[in-house]
């Protein structure tokens, strides 16, 4: 690369000029690429600093490469239990929220009932409220429900509450384009309601249900604000990061962040690539 550049040194001006011409012609493209770099910069920093070997507690300046943070990912006390609690809550909350959300979506799309409009608004409300207001209201609610101890249960209730909205919206989008004739056909062929639901309705809305589950899981694992308000003394992973950030977050936080990012992005990437290949063949 440098040899080529040296060879062309006399023609440097024209090279610069042609680069300038390219930039001018593709302003939007160049700008977008810069934008993507800006978007990805902090992610690169997170990944890079997961390999940092900080001399003290502060993982702010680069001071050497090491695998140790990855090898001893559960080194800092409390980090492992925080991760497990986060995963456990995310799993249960998204299962419950997806099941409830799918049913609510079915009811909202299929039936006309008395409080349908009110239900629609109620479902939409958590999506349009700042998280801090949600957290504060839930805390006030649980303070008055003295029989529910703060901790796992309150976090679960809170997560199910805001995840349901996302699940309903996701499943509803799929149900609106749903061909009811398919169900009628199944019924005509002698299937009862339950059988029709099992064999026709559920398989058809399954992609949306799966998407809702993944969305709920991602939101629940990542949620800090609401969790922080209702957690009591329980520590989920984001709450752990918050606590650690006040005294200097250990590099293992970046390790976990990187791991979550890699798992999520490879899943999403595989999905997009499969879609692109399918479109190409179609």
């Amino acid at each position, binding site marked *: 690369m440098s040899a080529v550049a040296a060879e062309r040194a006399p023609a440097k001006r024209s090279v610069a000029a042609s680069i300038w011409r390219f930039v001018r012609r593709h302003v939007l493209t160049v700008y977008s690429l810069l934008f993507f770099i800006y978007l990805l910069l902090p992610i690169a920093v997170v990944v890079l600093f997961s390999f940092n070997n900080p001399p003290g507690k502060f993982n*702010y300046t680069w001071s050497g490469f090491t695998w140790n943070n990855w090898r001893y990912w559960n080194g800092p006390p409390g980090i492992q239990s925080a991760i497990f609690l986060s995963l456990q809550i995310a799993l249960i909350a998204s299962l419950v929220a997806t099941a409830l959300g799918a049913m609510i979506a079915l009811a909202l799309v299929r039936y006309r009932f008395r409080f349908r409009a009110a239900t629609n608004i109620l479902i939409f409300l958590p999506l349009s409220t*700042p998280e801090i207001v949600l957290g504060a209201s839930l805390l006030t609610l649980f303070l008055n429900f003295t029989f529910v101890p703060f901790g796992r249960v309150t976090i679960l209730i809170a997560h199910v509450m805001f995840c349901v909205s996302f699940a309903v919206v996701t499943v509803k989008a799929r149900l609106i384009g749903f061909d009811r004739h398919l169900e009628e056909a199944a019924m005509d062929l002698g299937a009862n309601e339950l059988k029709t639901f099992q064999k026709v309705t559920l398989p058809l809305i399954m992609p949306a249900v799966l998407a809702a589950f993944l969305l709920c899981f991602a939101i629940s694992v990542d949620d800090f604000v609401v969790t922080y308000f209702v957690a009591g003394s329980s520590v989920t992973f984001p709450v752990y990061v918050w606590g650690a950030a006040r005294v200097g977050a250990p590099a293992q936080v970046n390790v976990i962040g990187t791991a979550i990012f890699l798992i999520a992005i490879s899943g999403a990437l595989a999905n997009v690539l499969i879609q692109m290949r399918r479109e190409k063949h179609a």
Partner: protein
Amino acid sequence: MQSGNIDFGYAFTWAWGNYWTAIRDYRPQFIRSIEYAGIATVIALVVSYPVAYWIAFRGGRWKNLLLLVIIAPFFVTYLIRTLAWETILADHGFVVHTLQNLHLVSSGGRLLATGTAVVAGITYNFLPFMALPLYVSLEQIDPRLIEAAEDLYANKIRAFLRVTFPLSLPGVVAGTLLTFIPAAGDFINAQLLGGPQNHMIGNVIQSKFLELSDYPAAASMSFILMGAILAFVAIYALVVGTEQLTGTAL
């Protein structure tokens, strides 16, 4: 609207005074929240519109992949993302050094613990909320409409102002709301990237609830925040709605 304190328990007494105290004592934080969220929303709109436009009209078959890049930050935990910005903007980081060399920041100056850092953090964290709705509404525009405008002797800028931009307004509205609402209640960026002088109303609510256990004050403040946001949304919808009406009338 409760009064009392943690030792004697709380009684519900219709204490409207909580609201007056909240507004009187924390007006700067309220105003700062609206200000920071507003600036961040405008910057996010200006910065991400060209990119959304580029993906929608020039993305071709790479569209989905490019959208994935836009939402990639969401795959990193919110707090860890913000901590990464703390590292980037740190006093000895290269960003501060570069700005110092360019004399944009005084030699002893810093970025952390300034309003700029907080606004930058908020803008970054909510960018995808702005870019995605913009993309969706731009993607739905029929390119033939723009061609038609150009056939009718509109130059590129006029075609954009008269055709493309008005048609993308639903995305602009959705994006602004999706960015502004969470941004106004945010306290993480102000806590990690700002100093005490940059605290927003979210920080006050958070500390009143979780550190000082002053529940009545905190509750009234979160209610005011929600009311303010609802009022803002209503006014915004009214303004944009009428503007769109006049737009079609022209």
